[in-house]
């Protein structure tokens, strides 16, 4: 579960005040809004990459508001994937488990496991150079899910993809939800994507989260 209560964030002249949002266990919440309204800032706050000036963020029963990103155990899929330029695909998938103290063999086993599930098992020894957009997003998803996080944040993960690849990744996300019990907060501009993936859809407008739809 993700629970955001009365969250206040300042970033230069930009601010979000008293944001309230709740994503239930295994829920998939989509957040939409105009460009520049603060969606990414809110997501960065949930991941611990931006500090909140007020309010709280809870993952289940744990208050994570003052925890560093590494301590929150959150999976983050940024807009362009942000694939590590100098690391092979297999090493990227094993990166999270290694950082969490898994042994090398356990981390590599997990990397192969998640790689197969995402259809990129054949790319494990590949350098990120030359990967297609869809492959990059699969690597980004696999990297975020490798440590089995309870919370995953996705910042417009499909925006740079063509229609066919977008459809493939949407199907992939739907199947991942069945095998991985995570609560997800997903940002998008696409209404179609929101209605396809989201259990609930919110719009961030004038610093407020307004529920638009619920399935």
């Amino acid at each position, binding site marked *: 579960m993700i629970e955001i209560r009365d969250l206040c964030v300042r970033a230069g002249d930009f601010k979000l005040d008293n944001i309230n949002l709740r994503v239930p266990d295994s829920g998939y919440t989509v957040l939409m809004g105009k460009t520049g309204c603060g969606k990414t800032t809110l997501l960065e706050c949930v991941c611990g990459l931006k500090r909140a000036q007020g309010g709280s963020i809870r993952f289940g029963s744990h208050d994570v508001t003052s925890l560093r990103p590494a301590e*929150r155990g959150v999976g983050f899929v940024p807009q362009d994937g*942000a694939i590590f330029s100098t690391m092979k695909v297999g090493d990227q998938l094993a990166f999270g488990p290694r950082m969490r103290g898994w042994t090398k063999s356990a981390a590599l086993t997990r990397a192969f496991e998640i790689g197969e599930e995402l259809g990129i098992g054949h790319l494990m020894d590949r350098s990120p150079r030359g990967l297609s957009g869809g492959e990059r997003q699969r690597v980004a998803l696999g*990297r975020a899910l490798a440590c089995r996080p309870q919370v995953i944040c996705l910042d417009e993960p499909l925006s740079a993809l063509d229609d066919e690849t977008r459809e493939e990744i949407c199907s992939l996300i739907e199947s991942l939800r069945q095998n991985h019990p995570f609560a997800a907060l997903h940002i998008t501009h696409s209404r179609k994507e929101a209605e396809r993936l989201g259990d609930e859809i919110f719009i961030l407008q004038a610093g407020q989260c307004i529920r638009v739809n619920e399935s």
Partner: protein
Amino acid sequence: MMTGEPYSPVKIKSDVPFFTALWGISGMYFLLIVAVLAADASYTSVHDLWTAVKDPNIRASIWLTLYTCTVTAVLSVIVSVPAGYILARFNFPLKKFFDAVLDIPIVLPPLVIGLSLLILFNQVMIGGQSIENWVGGWLEGLHDWNQNIPSGVTYKIPAIILAQFTVSCAFAVRTMRNTFEGIDPRQEEVAMTLGCGRSGAFWLIALPQAARGVVAAGTLAWARALGEFGPVLVFAGATRGSTEVLATTVFLEISIGNLEGAVAVSFLMIAVAIMVLTSVRILGMRQTV
């Protein structure tokens, strides 16, 4: 063009004057450098070069130059990597002031830097002693144990390195800042969500991507150190067989009226610089293949 009208191509001005100006201006600078090198080449000969290389004082100067430039380059990289990362990644109070101070060695006259170092080490008192005396005290014990270790700083080899480093490092910092600014910070942020702290994100994600920048910074520092004359002359002196490096050798040869020797040494410096720059460029190209 309104809908329904037949299409006709739009005529614009030719780009020939633009490209002529581009090539003309850069070409003039290119020709100036080539002319300077050609003038040097015409004033010296293989015999003069050979005489210079055989001279034991000049050979000692070559080795000392290679040694001090390499130490300076290594120190510059060690300092410029953290400084460049701080400037590229973090906002903090007085950041603009910090940035401006790090740029000062680029704009100060070299003689002023040498003079300032001389005053810092010999006129500023801490606990009743100058910094030179403090450092000299520490080094003296080591010098007694190993004569190769200098017994002080001013007018000795450490002064050459410090004078070269003070200027070269500023250029290296600028290079590393640009390098880190060119690396997507999102990758480090993702790494931090995956379980590492800022230091892990730096060592595992940012620094490997900055490798070519590190080589460039080290090369620039090395090349800059090779040509440093003013601060070295003032702070380390130009004592033949002791603190003489190639830049001060040219000065010494001119001062005794040996212009042919001075030009020969200048040509040696140009040759060494071209070899280092070319090697590093080839190395950089190999790493991208």
